[in-house]
């Protein structure tokens, strides 16, 4: 691979230069296509003669597309498999099944030189800026390390300059190049992690909870930085987080994951303002909202119980054990991620993929402008459509079937999240 970069270009031209090595692909096609992606971790029994007795189905059939310059947000609770998806995208985990197509080519089975070439274009930013930076390396070494592996990106003499440019791009003083990670605060460390992710001039950045370890006032700074970098370097982002407000802020499209699958996916307005999957609705209604007006306007759906163990996934729809709409059909038939039949012909934002047999639109977040917000003029006092009760939590929404007998968390028959293999709720 040739490179004609001088390497001492100024910060922004450094990275925005045409990526000449990029493989050509048709405009408008997704840059990344994920099809039926799965990761199963085997559960074994016995010490000498290990037998597989089951599998933790951490990711169990995930499909999505990522277009160039787009941000796809993936939200879900802990244990839903969102981080495993991220790790598979950057090839830190090998999928058990399925395909990850980067510009049409399946990269999930690549190895050696071909893999290395692809990895250059898909980089990752990790969650915890305290453990993802080597404490014994200087910032310059950390950000410059990718060049050791991909020397064609920057010739040896130009690296220091490039690292300083990168520091400048992420808003750190270039003179800090010889400092160590412990000399920085959490937010600054995350900037270092982002600079490292940018070092190889990638096309796709996978960010796994990049701001959740940061304080609120610093979170906003880092979110703004990511926004700016995306525009400046026309990056495609896969942004994984559990905080729905931040995901909405940064994403063009959002996928909601539950127990290893995407249950609903669509544009940010489709998901947040017109959710059709009951899990999405419950998740949105549970988000803590500081605005007392917004709180009074919304309906709270309190889900019973915990997420079932991924080692023991319910039959049919995997959300049915906590769903207030569950019927016999949900137990027998796996709902597919597609536009539900009732919305197929309507021209409405509710027409987007949702894996529910009984999908119906339900607004849980009041519309913008309906509420008084700090520094803004109060809007008209309108009741959000679809909201039947105001402020009051709606408990016991329907009888959720035989699984949940009484209010409160019911883990009988099911394990808790993050405890693969261990039947947390099994009563002796």
């Amino acid at each position, binding site marked *: 691979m040739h490179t004609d970069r001088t390497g001492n270009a100024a910060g922004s031209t450094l990275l925005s230069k045409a990526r000449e090595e990029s493989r050509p692909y048709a405009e408008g096609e997704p840059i990344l296509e994920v099809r039926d992606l799965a990761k199963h971790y085997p559960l074994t029994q016995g010490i000498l003669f290990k037998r597989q007795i089951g599998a933790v189905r951490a990711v169990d059939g995930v499909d999505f597309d990522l277009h160039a310059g787009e941000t796809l947000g993936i939200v879900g609770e802990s244990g839903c498999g969102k981080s495993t998806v991220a790790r598979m995208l950057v090839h830190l985990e090998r999928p058990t099944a399925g395909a990850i197509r980067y510009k049409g080519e399946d990269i999930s089975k690549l190895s050696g030189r071909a893999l290395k070439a692809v990895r250059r274009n898909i980089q990752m930013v990790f969650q915890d800026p305290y453990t993802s930076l080597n404490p014994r390396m200087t910032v310059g070494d950390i950000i410059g390390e990718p060049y050791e592996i991909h020397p064609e990106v920057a010739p040896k003499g130009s690296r220091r300059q490039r690292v300083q440019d990168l520091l400048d791009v992420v808003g750190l003083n270039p003179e800090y190049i010889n400092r160590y990670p412990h000399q920085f605060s959490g937010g600054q460390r995350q900037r270092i992690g982002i600079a490292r992710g940018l070092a190889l001039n990638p096309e796709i950045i996978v960010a796994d909870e990049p701001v959740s370890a940061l304080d609120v*006032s610093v979170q*906003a700074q880092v979110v703004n930085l990511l926004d700016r970098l995306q525009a400046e370097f026309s990056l495609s982002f896969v942004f994984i987080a559990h905080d729905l*407000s931040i995901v909405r802020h940064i994403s063009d499209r959002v996928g909601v994951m539950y127990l290893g699958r995407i249950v609903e996916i669509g544009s940010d307005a489709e998901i947040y303002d017109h959710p059709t999957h009951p899990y999405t609705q419950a998740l949105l209604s549970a988000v*803590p909202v*500081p605005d007392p007006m917004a709180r009074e306007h919304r309906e709270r759906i*309190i889900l019973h119980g915990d997420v079932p163990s991924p080692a023991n996934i319910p039959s049919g729809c995997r959300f049915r054990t906590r769903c207030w709409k569950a019927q016999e059909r949900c137990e027998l038939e796996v709902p597919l991620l597609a536009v539900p039949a009732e919305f197929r012909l309507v021209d409405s934002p509710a027409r987007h993929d949702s894996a529910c047999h009984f999908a119906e639109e339900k607004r849980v977040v009041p519309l913008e402008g309906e509420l008084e917000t700090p520094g803004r003029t109060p809007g008209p006092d309108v009741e959000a459509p679809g909201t039947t009760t105001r402020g009051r939590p709606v408990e016991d929404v329907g009888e959720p079937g035989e699984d949940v007998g009484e209010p409160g*968390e019911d*883990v009988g028959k099911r394990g808790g*999240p993050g405890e693969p293999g261990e039947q947390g709720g099994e009563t*002796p």
Partner: protein
Amino acid sequence: MLLEVRDLHVEFHTREGVAKAVNGVNYSVAEGETLAVLGESGSGKSVTAQAVMGILDMPPGKITGGEILFKGQDLLKLKPEERRKIRGQEMAMIFQDALSSLNPVLTVGQQLGEMFVVHRGMSRKDARAKSVELMDRVRIPAAKERVGNYPHQFSGGMRQRIMIAMAMALEPSLIIADEPTTALDVTVQAQVMDLLAELQRELNMGLILITHDLGVVADVADKIAVMYAGRIVETAPVHEIYKAPAHPYTKGLLQSIPRLDQKGQELYAIKGLPPNLLHIPPGCAFNPRCPMAQDVCRTDVPPLYEVDEQRRSACHFWKETLDAH
């Protein structure tokens, strides 16, 4: 008044120097009242709570001034044995991480029952029955069967319920919950917060909720104290603080939270970083990050000005901050 913290000062002596973690905190909680203490990491919110509970590590920590009045009695003047009696019986604490606060090698029944054996002199058998009763009360299904389980056999939300059960075992009059739902998923967060609020009402306890997320506590708190660099910068009833913050820090904090119902342009971000507690800026600690800072802010520490009967703000320009709405 159930609890009154008056002008509390706490320092930590470290190799790099003296870190002033708490610099004159005042707050009070009445019976049946919920106070939320809001702050970022390093703001001193947990250290204050530890000082109240009497579980501050000393050294390196040192209480250098102030009073902690609990039912009129200054806790700082009590002997360690006397404080131990109050802890658990009169006031209890719920921690963020239930898994590391529970003993992994004892069953939850043993841990819950220990309270009754030690403080009430009950027999093991009676204590076990009491444990089941408590687990029922925090709505752990099949409590009778699960009382012999170990902490790792419970999910995160359930473990937090056990922590709550343990804290209220002896029906204390004050509970301090330090980020009780931070480690939980959003759908479980609401369940746990509701449970806590309900039990508090039932027992008419005072409750201090320590948090970094206003949204989590907004439904249950009566009033809020915002902390920054070891001081309270604003106190107000929940609704009013959101509608019209009277301190630039509170205002910036609220504006920097992305909202679920809108997709703004750029997020408002408070510039700079929280101060290093070894070198708190002179004057108002927030002045280097404050958009309204004037000369006076760099020299004079602002007192807690009275905004109205229920509100206080430690900003020289609280009027201007309020008027900016």
